[in-house]
């Protein structure tokens, strides 16, 4: 019989305070997608190999499939839903750059790619190509090819720098 002992966890998800109950074995992936309906977080390998379940934990990317839910107590979680500009014509700079550069094809890895790019650009507004490749190295894309994605991040960085200068 499965154990039903519940653990109370509080965290901030995309700027909103959440109080939930989870089991000791629950992953953050299961909690986000099944309990909290953040559908941008995708299921992939469940082993930390493909990266499509990436979310930002206190501003840094982590694999949600490897993160126990109880471990995020008191933390800030960001998913693609938290990027400002949810409307079609009001996209975040990274989202705009991905669209302009055709940096998505099937789109399955795109939320994770965008979050990893965001984490990089928050810390390093002017990254080199190698730094972008390193930042995206934990997410697999099986259809676009990586160059349009790298170019999109370069463009997003430029757009964000220009915005800051204005």
């Amino acid at each position, binding site marked *: 019989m*499965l*154990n039903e*002992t519940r*653990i109370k966890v509080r965290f901030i998800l995309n700027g909103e305070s959440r109080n939930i109950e989870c*089991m*000791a*074995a*629950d*992953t953050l992936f*299961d909690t986000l997608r*099944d*309990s909290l309906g953040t559908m941008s977080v995708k299921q992939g390998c*469940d*082993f*930390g*190999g493909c*990266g499509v379940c*990436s979310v930002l*934990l206190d501003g*840094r*990317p*982590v*694999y949600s*499939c*490897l*993160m*126990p839910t*109880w*471990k995020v107590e008191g933390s800030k979680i960001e998913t693609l839903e938290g990027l400002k500009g949810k409307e079609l014509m009001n996209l975040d700079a990274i989202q705009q750059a991905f669209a302009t550069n055709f940096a998505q094809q099937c789109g399955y890895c795109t939320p994770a790619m965008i979050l*990893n790019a965001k*984490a990089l650009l928050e810390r390093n507004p002017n990254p080199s190509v190698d730094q972008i490749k*390193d*930042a995206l*190295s*934990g*997410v697999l894309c099986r259809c676009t090819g990586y160059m349009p994605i790298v170019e999109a991040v370069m463009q997003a960085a430029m757009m964000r720098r220009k915005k800051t200068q204005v």
Partner: protein
Amino acid sequence: MRDLELNMVFDPSEVLRPSSFQDAVETLDSSDSKIVAGNTSLYSLARKGRLENIKKLVDISKLGISYIKEAESQTSEEKKILVGAGTTFQEITSSSLINGRPEYAGLKEALNKSPPQIRNVATIGGSICSAVSFYDLPIVLFALGTTLKFFSKKEGEHLITIDSFFQNPALYGKSLLIECQFSSSPNSASSFVKLCRRMSGYAVAMTAARIKLDRTSREIDDIRLVIGAMTKTPQRLNQVEEELRHKEPSIETITRMCEKSADLVHDIIPSVHASTAYKKRVLPILLREAITTAVERATER
């Protein structure tokens, strides 16, 4: 919704958060508890059915073992660095004690092979205590001659060499790793070379070297060579080290010694991506690259 497939093979009932080393090791008395640090291998092991009897997860994040600092008593010759077992890869690579120092260049290379998602959570202690031959970081820590500080009920805090640990990791199953210590000395440098299908994936084969050159003669004063993903546990190449010690590190000498290495390692095991014969073939090549890189770095100092 619960992941029922996972819960069929992994169904812990509680999370314990000890606040002292003593409390932490008390939890290890029962066979149904498991320490979790960065959690990078927890669910992989669980899905393979290896944690079926685990009922208590022991969270050690409140033990104050996330730090990187220089030891207080230092000699001018040797600088010792202390790294708490709960320190993440990211915290180590961003430390000014590691960055730009040739003696730790191999350490940084190994840490940066992991993607950011792993670097942000994986801990130095977790990578050692997993005691597997195919993790990158322990290979370099082995080459650096790391000393491990454990805490056990019987002995309290005590130090052992990483060499002793890898001879029989199972001996330390009831102990808690709390700190890793490694030293650097002038004219020393390290390197790490990994052969893999995907950089952030597990290695097909890898080598790490730490070399200290004699200040005046520029001969190899001290050398440690370690191989990983080839034998069951990381292994030192004592005979190759002995052959190279007190020799001038010319490319001819290094190449000649490395070519012998494949015959000196008898227990190379195949993996899904490489046969024993293939690993024997690449060993001298990886080893030569690791040694020449470390020598170049030590020479530039």
